[in-house]
């Protein structure tokens, strides 16, 4: 069976649009609510990235940090996250799920244990922010054995030589960081410039799916439509925070936001 991640890209391509990837933090603002949020956005999102909250995140901006601290404060544990994924898959078994987090959490769980648990709960891909290439070679191989995509990150600072090597060794999907920023920074480069870099990467191997993330909001998403996929994370976390602060229901609000995002890339 092929990985549902590839199927999601295929479907989006057939509809002549990029795949929409959302990022929400597991356990934000509670275990149940984060599951409900996943359910409410699954109609419009093609791939769901689920953040594994960590308390010393070196690449996340304030929005995602706020979500992560909120989830940790509520006592979220890794096993809860696997449960959320498993429960979600009962609701929508074909929707691909990617876990995104920092390596220490995986390391403490044990690489093999972690991947087995990913497999049984229905995780289809992994982004490990602080496990770059070539340090991730062994881990990526272990993922492959379990048919889980290990998603390589690429950045504007990645040299051409390095890009080639990473792409060569990569699984079918990779993640291009739009600019020099933590997550959720204001887009400080033009969409044209981002797409220029994106195309440079795409050219190396057009068969690899490349998604763009960091700094993408409702305002900018429409201008990046030509990519294989687009990730929106901080804008969603911000909406959760805003909803909580104004005593509104984050589940319906985030559902609405994702529908709007989807409409902008149709």
């Amino acid at each position, binding site marked *: 069976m092929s990985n549902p991640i590839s199927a999601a890209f295929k479907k989006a391509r057939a509809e002549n649009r990029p795949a929409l990837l959302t990022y929400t933090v597991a356990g934000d603002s509670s275990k149940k609510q984060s599951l409900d949020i996943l359910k409410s956005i699954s109609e419009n999102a093609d791939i769901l990235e689920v953040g594994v909250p960590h308390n*010393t995140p070196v*690449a996340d901006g304030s929005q995602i940090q706020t979500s992560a601290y909120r989830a940790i404060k509520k006592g979220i544990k890794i096993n809860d996250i696997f449960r959320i994924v498993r429960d979600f898959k009962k609701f929508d078994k074909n929707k691909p799920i990617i876990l995104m987090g920092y390596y220490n959490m995986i390391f403490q769980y044990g690489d093999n244990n972690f991947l087995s648990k990913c497999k049984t709960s229905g995780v289809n891909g992994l982004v490990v922010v602080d496990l770059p290439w070539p340090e991730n070679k062994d881990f990526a191989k272990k993922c492959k054995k379990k048919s889980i995509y290990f998603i390589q990150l690429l950045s504007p600072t990645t040299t051409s030589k390095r890009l080639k090597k990473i792409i060569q060794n990569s699984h079918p999907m990779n993640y291009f960081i739009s600019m020099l920023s933590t997550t959720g920074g204001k887009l400080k480069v033009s969409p044209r410039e981002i797409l220029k870099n994106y195309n440079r990467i795409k050219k190396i191997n057009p068969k690899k799916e490349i998604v763009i993330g960091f700094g993408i909001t409702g305002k900018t998403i429409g201008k990046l439509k030509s990519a294989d996929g687009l990730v929106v994370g901080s804008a969603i976390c911000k909406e959760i925070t805003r909803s909580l602060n104004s005593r509104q229901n984050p589940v319906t609000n985030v559902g609405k936001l994702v529908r709007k995002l989807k409409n902008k890339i149709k």
Partner: protein
Amino acid sequence: MKLKKKIPVIDQGNSLGFWGGKFGGNFVPETLKKPIEDLEVLFNKLKKDKKFISERDKYFKNWVGAPTRFIKLENLTNHIGGAQIWSKVVSDANGGAHKIYNATVHCLLAKRSGKKIICGDTGAGYAGKMLSMAAKKFGLKCKIFMGAKDIARQKPNVKAMKKNGAEVIPVYSGSQTLVDAVSECMRFWVANCDTTAMCVGSTVGPAVFVRICGWSTSQISRELKIQLIKEFGSIPKKLKLYNCVGGGSSSFGFWNEFMDYDKKQVEFIGVEAGGPAKSKKHAAPLTYGSKIGILHGAAQYVNQNSDGQIEETESISAGLDYPGISPLHCFLKDTKRARYTAASDEEALSAYKLVTKFEKLRPSLEPSHAFFVALKEAKKLSKDTVVVINSCGDAYKDRGILEERLGKKYVKSN
């Protein structure tokens, strides 16, 4: 795991930057790979460049003020009645602590790389103060990240940073101490690595920062070796070097030149912060058997829960209040070259009282931890044993805490 002889410890990591195959490394976001590699290339070249070394030495001598004093603490020696007690008064250095060495070298490197801004983290405020001094000296703009809790408890250093023209950015996330300051500083670098150089304030962080800091603070042991030979004619037969350990920059620098000596001759004792006597929280991952984890880009022993969340620490001394520890010290512990233990807040305060009662020396709360263990052990040691404590910081920055805990006379009388 084995320590090699005749190769500097900073250069004993493997190609991926791991000491002993498992400590250190580069667990960093992709964006930082290139700037880190650039810094590695630059540092590897310059540390062999005679011109660069003489430039460094010139600034160490004329600006930092090398060598710092090596003095016998006669009164304490008599009072304790055991080993001879000496101190390397590193707080003599410009700015009042060892952090000046790393800051100077990072600014020299930043200049060479053409960067105009330098950012850094700070706990006790010394790393930040020194970086602001060095940045001013070398014409760089300076941004310092500091936990909001530390800003409140280390005011004199904050004032100094601002006076030097640095922007002090308070960090409100997490425990609002050093661990959060380092995270925030790394995040800033992720977003600004094209224009900005980063100085990690201790022998922590991605491997190259561990190496640069260790290389810089080793000035301490280079000086001490000469001073010991001048004083005793040779390296004493029984020498014990006590140092506090937070991130581990001063202790590594204090020991580096003696690495190849047999530990029966030159013993290294690292003293971590045990925290308040009644609290379960501490900043002593080596002493209390913390597990290996990844923090700020490096694998190390670190205080964490079973899920891998980094745990909050507690210590009276902001400079030691860090949940992790340098990969270099993990390596020295596992190869058994150094011995590690901890002193509590109360023990550090008692040592501060004792030292200031007998000597004209005013160690900050960080080295007071080392003084406590050294004085306790010195009692049982023979008269021909030479105990040296690195007094790596001055207590001026601690006067608020000292006044609160010990009363006014301990601030005024010194």
